């Protein structure tokens, strides 16, 4: 006998779990320790330092993704008719629910720490895979059949959707993106990035698109496409993402806090690994200390979340290691490094250059400034870098290339039934330039670093103006 379950959600309102074997198993997955841990991992990391309302958790997002995945699966069911396979659909829906299970504290910043220190279990894909295959999550999933958990892990670990069921978990219109774009907008309070969710879903169809690797064709695959009446909704969707990058995801203060956290955690882990835990302010039994000493242990990874990190900040603020104490105090008091937008500063210095040449000049100057900063940091050799660099690039939409994959392709079905790339149908989308960031952060009182940056930027911008390509 199964019991119906209900969750109230700020985005989707009522999310119901039906009293059947599958949804009962999903409810059991939610009750596990790894899933409950997601309540203590915020979806947007440090974004609440900018948008106080953006404290929503990966728990709420994951449940929302499951709910959205069920809506998408209805589209699949309608399309496939008698060919629809419930067993395949259930695997994809379960994958949607557990896709974020492996995220660590402050997700992306923690992953960056892992990348720098080569810690495999700081990578959320590795942790998700281990938890889905070998934890109480696997036990809950395998009530639906032995091997169910492994099949779910394979869907998440696969290099992309292999069929239309997989497109629910990973495609341009996957449940993850459809949930987070709306949820992050709602919870942050930003008025940018609105999407026409109901119209998108109502116009979602299944189409067959070709795929390949480099110049070589690989065949075709069924994925989501949009009907002809959804072209403006598709534009809004792409523009929405384009607006969320600068305003929310890559906000200078959020990124500045992530940079401080990254340097703090890297220094703490390295000192602990070097046997200098006494200088970090942490006890040997602290979850961060345990993780530092055995970073491959899934138990140690599971013990980390945002609250553990915030709880450790006051202790680290008392550390005898000055770098740790300084960085922890800054995070605690939101006294972050000041940012300087190198790219924008260079753009302002080359405004007189003809527009056609300007982009190239700016790019060249950015490269030169970056190299000068690296040389300066190497010369200063401080415990933690005195200048923190934030460089990234995002293309909200790009015509298909394999390195980006089907994840980034939107196909519009024309009135005649042909599938064309959104890029070919929309001048607006075609005109969007990638969002590029090149900022640096430094302590407000570090006048030497500030002077060096100002001088370098001024020197490098005119230099490249005069140099031939």
């Amino acid at each position: 006998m199964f019991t119906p379950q209900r969750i109230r959600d700020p985005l989707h309102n009522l999310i119901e779990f039906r009293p059947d074997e599958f949804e009962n198993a999903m409810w059991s997955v939610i009750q596990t320790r790894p899933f409950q841990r997601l309540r203590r991992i915020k979806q947007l990391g440090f974004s609440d330092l900018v948008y106080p309302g953006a404290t929503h958790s990966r728990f709420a997002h994951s449940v929302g993704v499951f709910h959205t995945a069920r809506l998408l699966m209805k589209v699949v069911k309608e399309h496939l008719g008698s060919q629809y396979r419930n067993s395949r659909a259930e695997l994809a829906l379960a994958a949607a629910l557990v896709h974020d299970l492996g995220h660590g504290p402050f997700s992306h910043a923690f992953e960056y720490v892992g990348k720098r220190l080569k810690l495999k279990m700081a990578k959320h894909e590795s942790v998700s895979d281990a938890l889905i295959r070998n934890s109480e999550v696997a036990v809950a999933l395998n009530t639906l059949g032995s091997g169910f958990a492994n099949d779910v892990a394979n869907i998440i670990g696969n290099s992309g959707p292999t069929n239309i069921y997989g497109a629910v978990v990973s495609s341009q219109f996957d449940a993850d993106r459809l949930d987070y774009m709306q949820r992050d907008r709602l919870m942050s309070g930003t008025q940018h990035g609105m999407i026409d969710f109901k119209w998108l879903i109502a116009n979602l169809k299944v189409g067959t698109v070709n795929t390949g690797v480099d110049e070589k064709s690989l065949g075709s695959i069924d994925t989501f496409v949009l009907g002809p009446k959804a072209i403006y909704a598709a534009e809004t969707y792409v523009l929405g993402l384009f607006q969320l990058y600068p305003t929310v995801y890559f906000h200078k203060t959020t990124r500045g806090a992530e940079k401080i956290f990254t340097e703090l955690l890297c220094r703490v882990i390295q000192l602990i690994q070097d046997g200098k835990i006494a200088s970090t302010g942490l006890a040997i039994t602290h979850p961060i200390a345990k993780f530092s000493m055995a970073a491959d242990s899934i138990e140690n990874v599971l013990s980390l979340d945002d609250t553990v990190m915030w709880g450790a900040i006051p202790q680290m603020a008392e550390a005898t290691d000055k770098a740790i104490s300084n960085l922890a105090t800054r995070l605690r008091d939101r006294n972050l490094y000041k940012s300087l937008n190198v790219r924008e500063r260079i753009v302002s210095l080359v405004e007189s250059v003809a527009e056609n040449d300007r982009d190239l000049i700016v790019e060249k100057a950015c490269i030169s400034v970056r190299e000068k900063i690296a040389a300066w940091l190497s010369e200063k050799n401080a415990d933690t870098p005195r200048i923190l660099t934030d460089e990234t690039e995002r293309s909200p939409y790009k015509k298909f290339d394999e390195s980006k994959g089907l994840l980034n392709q939107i196909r519009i079905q024309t009135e005649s039934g042909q599938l064309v790339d959104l890029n070919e149908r929309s001048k607006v989308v075609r005109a969007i330039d990638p969002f590029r960031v090149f900022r640096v952060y430094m302590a407000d009182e570090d006048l030497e670093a500030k002077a060096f940056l100002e001088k370098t930027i001024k020197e490098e911008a005119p230099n490249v103006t005069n140099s031939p390509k």
Partner: protein
Amino acid sequence: MSQTAQNKRPIEKAADIIRDAGGKIVGRTRLQKIACLMELAGVGYGFSFEYHHYGPYSEELTHAIRDAYLIGLLNEEECSASWGGTYSVYTTDVASVLPPSSPQKILVQLAVDADPIELELAITAAFLGSQGEGNPWQETENRKSEKARDGRLERAKHLYEKFRAVNSPIPLPPLE
């Protein structure tokens, strides 16, 4: 990595990969996999790789290639594939300084001539093996089931054996 290579900037190292490949590499996937193969065999330029959706991937290399293009160290042309997608062709006029018989040159040439899907499978398995994966071919098949079909996984294994036969500074290990 040689001392000379160590002192080079990432953009120069990225351009050197194109140069080592005879001045032309077709496709971003092929470029990434060639660079990864070079690292695994001990003839690389120090780019670090991690597992991405499409197998081993170096973000650092992606940035270096883009910057190398911007300052004119190499050319990148975007072409349309017959299957409807796009792919990049990287070229440089600078000649390779490697003797044709060097392990580096032989390995890279094998990869340049390989089918990109089979190359992706072979290098993914090699990379997974280097990360401690117990059964890298099986894992590659699990993760890339569509690409592994139609005999491609078998041909990828054969390709990997060709790489192994090259006398590289770090011998590529057997994978099963």
